[in-house]
């Protein structure tokens, strides 16, 4: 429903603004975006965590306690915003909050933030190659939010502004599996 979407967008913007303001005060706009991406990745990757944080039968304080325990190493201002999200039963907005924050962070930093997922930590050489390639393509400064995820087996996954380049080994293997599963058997199909 348009009304709902507008409300959701407004709510997400409020959380993102609050987070951006806190980050601006610490001069850690980009660093906070990386932490936000880490939280989003963790919540997306764990069904139990996602279900627990969204479970209204569990008291809000208990859920926020779990959140603080799991993400104890995060920036306190980010943790405070996340706590409000959980206590107000808005954890489902986390992805939209991330998008809104990234959008504002890019405006504030005058750069494009690209999420990069690899199996190993990027070294400076790789980082520079990625930045050089996409700075040239996009015509703007590029900042990389790096994630290490062994589940992609190898290769690299890049995404920004809703566009995604999946050059991971796992997707290649998945393509190979699809081809092997559907390949014709000597023309008898």
């Amino acid at each position, binding site marked *: 429903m348009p009304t709902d979407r507008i409300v959701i967008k407004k709510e997400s913007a409020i959380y993102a603004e609050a987070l951006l303001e806190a980050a601006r005060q610490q001069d850690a706009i980009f660093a906070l975006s990386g932490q936000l991406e880490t939280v989003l990745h963790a919540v997306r990757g764990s069904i139990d965590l996602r279900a627990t944080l969204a479970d209204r039968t569990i008291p809000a304080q208990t859920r926020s306690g779990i959140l603080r325990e799991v993400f104890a190493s995060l920036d306190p201002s980010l943790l405070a915003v996340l706590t409000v999200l959980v206590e107000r039963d808005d954890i489902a907005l986390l992805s939209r909050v991330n998008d809104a924050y990234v959008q504002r962070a890019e405006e504030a930093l005058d750069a494009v933030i690209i999420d990069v997922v690899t199996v190993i930590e990027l070294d400076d050489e790789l980082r520079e190659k990625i930045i050089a390639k996409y700075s040239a393509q996009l015509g703007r400064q590029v900042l990389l939010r790096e994630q290490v995820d062994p589940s992609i087996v190898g290769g*690299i996954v890049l995404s920004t502004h809703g566009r995604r380049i999946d050059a991971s080994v796992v997707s290649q*293997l998945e393509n190979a599996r699809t081809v092997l599963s559907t390949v014709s058997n000597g023309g008898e199909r």
Partner: protein
Amino acid sequence: MKVFEAAKKKLALVPLAAGAALVAFPSLAFADEGAQPEAAQGGGGVELLVPNPLEFVPMLIGFILLWIILAKFAWPVITDMLDKRVTTIRDSLEKAESAKIESERLLEEHKTQLEDAKKQAAQIVADAKAAGEAVKADIVAAAQVEAQAAISKATAAIEAEKKAAIAQLQSSVADLSVSVAGRLIGQDLSDADHRRVIERYLAEAGSLNAN
């Protein structure tokens, strides 16, 4: 019939012959009477051969009277009886003849009917055989069609099962291959290998520019 006619004529001659015999030989009729006087008289000869008119005439008259009486009263009855008998026998013979003809006709008719019946029976048997052959052919044809349909159905089912089995096997092989390949790649690639892979994929990767 001619035999009866002849017998009838012969019977009509019997009284006449008897009368003629008596006239011709009167001494025979009176032989016993003539013999006694001759023996008594001790004579014989010609007298024995010549009838005595005193005896002969009354006897002739008597004979004629008897003949007339017989001819008047007995003979018509006898001839009528014989006629009736002849008629009866003739009728019987005619009836027998007609019966014989009728029986022969019936025999012929029965023979004809028997032949017809035989022909009909043969025709019925032939028809029954033909009908049986037709039914047999129909049953065999229907059975063949049914068998062919069953074979086709079974072949299609087998083919479908085969395809499903091949697809399942293919999918299993693909899953297993990919799983093994993923594990091998994950285990065997060093950091340097991963970097090379990233560089190569990065070089091949498309644009992130939405415009």
